[in-house]
C-alpha cells in the first residue's frame, strides 16, 4: 500500500539534478483557477470592505459590477477549491511528526532544517494552510449566501444578515492573512514555485524539505519503473 501522502503522479526521475514530479497538470490548473478566484475575490471584497479601497471597484467596471460579480467568483472558487480538497485532503492528514515540526517553528523560520523531523509531502505549516483554507472557504460561502441579496434576500432575516456580513468580513481577513503566509512561504523557500508552474521540483528540494516523501517515492515501486534504461 502506498503511503498516505504519495499522490498519483508523484514520481522521481534520475538525472542531474534529480527531478521529482509533485503536481500533475490537472492539479496545477485546478490550483491556478482557485488562486485567480481568490485574488479577484480579495480585491473585489476589500473594495467593498474599506472606503479607502473602493477605487478597486474600477478594476471590475464599477461598484455595481463589483457587487454583482463578487459572489459568482466565490461560487467558482468554492467548486474549484473542492477539487483541490478532493486531491489533497489525504496527504494533509495530521501526523505525529507534524506536532514535532510545529513545536520547532523557531528552527523552521531560521532555516535549520537539520533540526526538524523528516516530513511527508506536506509539512505542518502547509497542512495548517490547507485546513484553514478549507474551513474558511466553507464559512465564507455560507455567510456569503446569506448576504447574496440579489437572489437570496428572502431566505434570511436582517439580523441574520448582520451576523453573516460580520462573519464574512472576519473570515475574509483571516483567509487573506493565511494567503499571505502561503505566498510568502513559496517565495522564501526557493525552488517551490516550479512545483506549481512546471509541476516538478528538484531532488535536493524534496530532500531538504520533504525527505520522508522523497524516501517513500524512491522506496516505492514507482521510482524503479521510471529509471531510464541505461
Amino acid at each position: 500500500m502506498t503511503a498516505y501522502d504519495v499522490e498519483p503522479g508523484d514520481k522521481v526521475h534520475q538525472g542531474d539534478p534529480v527531478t521529482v514530479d509533485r503536481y500533475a497538470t490537472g492539479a496545477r490548473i485546478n490550483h491556478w483557477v482557485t488562486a485567480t478566484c481568490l485574488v479577484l475575490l480579495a480585491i473585489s471584497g476589500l473594495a467593498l470592505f474599506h472606503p479607502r479601497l473602493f477605487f478597486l471597484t474600477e478594476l471590475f467596471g464599477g461598484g455595481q459590477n463589483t457587487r454583482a460579480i463578487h459572489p459568482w467568483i466565490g461560487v467558482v472558487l468554492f467548486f474549484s477549491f473542492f477539487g483541490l480538497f478532493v486531491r489533497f485532503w489525504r496527504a494533509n492528514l495530521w501526523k505525529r511528526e507534524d506536532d514535532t515540526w510545529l513545536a520547532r517553528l523557531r528552527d523552521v523560520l531560521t532555516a535549520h532544517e537539520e533540526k526538524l523531523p523528516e516530513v511527508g509531502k506536506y509539512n505542518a505549516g502547509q497542512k495548517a494552510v490547507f485546513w484553514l483554507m478549507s474551513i474558511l472557504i466553507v464559512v465564507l460561502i455560507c455567510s456569503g449566501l446569506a448576504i447574496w441579496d440579489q437572489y437570496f434576500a428572502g431566505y434570511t432575516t436582517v439580523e441574520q444578515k448582520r451576523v453573516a456580513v460580520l462573519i464574512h468580513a472576519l473570515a475574509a481577513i483571516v483567509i487573506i492573512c493565511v494567503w499571505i503566509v502561503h505566498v510568502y512561504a513559496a517565495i522564501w523557500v526557493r525552488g517551490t514555485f516550479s512545483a506549481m508552474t512546471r509541476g516538478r521540483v528538484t531532488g535536493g528540494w524534496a530532500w531538504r524539505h520533504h525527505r520522508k516523501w522523497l524516501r517513500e517515492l524512491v522506496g516505492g515501486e514507482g521510482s524503479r519503473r521510471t529509471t531510464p534504461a541505461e
Partner: protein
Amino acid sequence: MASNFEFELPNPPTRNVGSNLGEADLVRRSASSVPAPAQKLTAVAKLIDVSKCIGCKACESACLEWNDMRAEIGTNVGVYDNPPDLTPSMFTVMRFTEWVNPATQNLEWLIRKDGCMHCADPGCLKACPAPGAIVQYSNGIVDFVHESCIGCGYCVKGCPFNIPRISQVDHKAYKCTLCSDRVAVGQGPACAKACPTHAIVFGTKDEMTRHAEGRITDLKSRGYANAGLYDPPGVGGTHVMYVLHHADKPEIYAGLPRNPRISPIVELWKGVTKYAGLTAMAAFAAVGFLHYVVSGPNRVSPEDEDNARRLAGSGPP
C-alpha cells in the same frame, strides 16, 4: 385659524425657485468625508400624529404621485395594509394594528405610517460602502443618491427600522427622501401636503417638538396618560417623529422599536473590524518582508542535491 391647521404647507411657487439643498449642505457622506458646512440649515422634521390618523392612505397616494411611481397590484392579505410592506416603489406604508387595551378592554385601531425616520445617526449611511451613495444634509434629511448606489444591501443591515428596499430592476436602494426635492424649494413632503386631518405636519424640528407637546397635553387631558413623543435618542433623535397615545408601548404600533439604535454587530463590522482587519493584513505582509530581510531566502544546497542523487540511486556526479 384652528390650531390643527397651524402648519399648513404653502402652495407651490409660480416662479422658478433655486434649490437650497446642495453639496455645500452635506454633513455626512457615505464612505467618504465632507468639509464642515459653512452654515447649517435649520433642522426640519415631519411629525406624524398617530392619534389623528384616519387610515385614508392619502399619504401613500401622494407619495406615489410625487415620486412618479406605481405600486404593483397586489393581493388582499387579510389586513388593511396595502401593499403589505415597503417596496422599492412604495416609500411609505400605513400599518394597521388592532389592539385591545387591557386597561379599558377597548379595541383600539392603531394606524402608523411607516417609512424612513431620517435618523440623526443614520445606520444606513454608516454601513454604506459606496462613496456618496447616502448623504445627510444639515437640515437632517438622509437621502440616497442613486447614481452612486451599488445595490449591495448594506444599508438594509445598517437600518434599525428595516426601511431600505433594493430594487430587482435597477439594483439600487430606495426609501423615503422626506421629499428633499420639495423641501429644497420651500415646500413640505407630499404626504404632509395631502393629509386631510393634518396628522402629518412638517416644519422645523423645534416647531414640531413644540407642536407635539401641545398634542400630548391634549391627549393626556382626554385620558391617554401615557401619550408622548417618539424621537428615539438611541439614533440621536429622528427627523420623522410620532405622537403616540401609548408612547410607553411603541411595540404595539406594528413593531415600532422601543429603543432603536444601530446594531452593535454593525458597529463592530464598520468600526474596529475595518481597522483591525487592514492592520492584520499589513502586519502579516510586513512580518514576511522583515523575515526575508533578516534571514534571506531558504535555498537548496548542492549537498541536498547530492543527497537526493545518492538516495535516488543516481550516485554522486
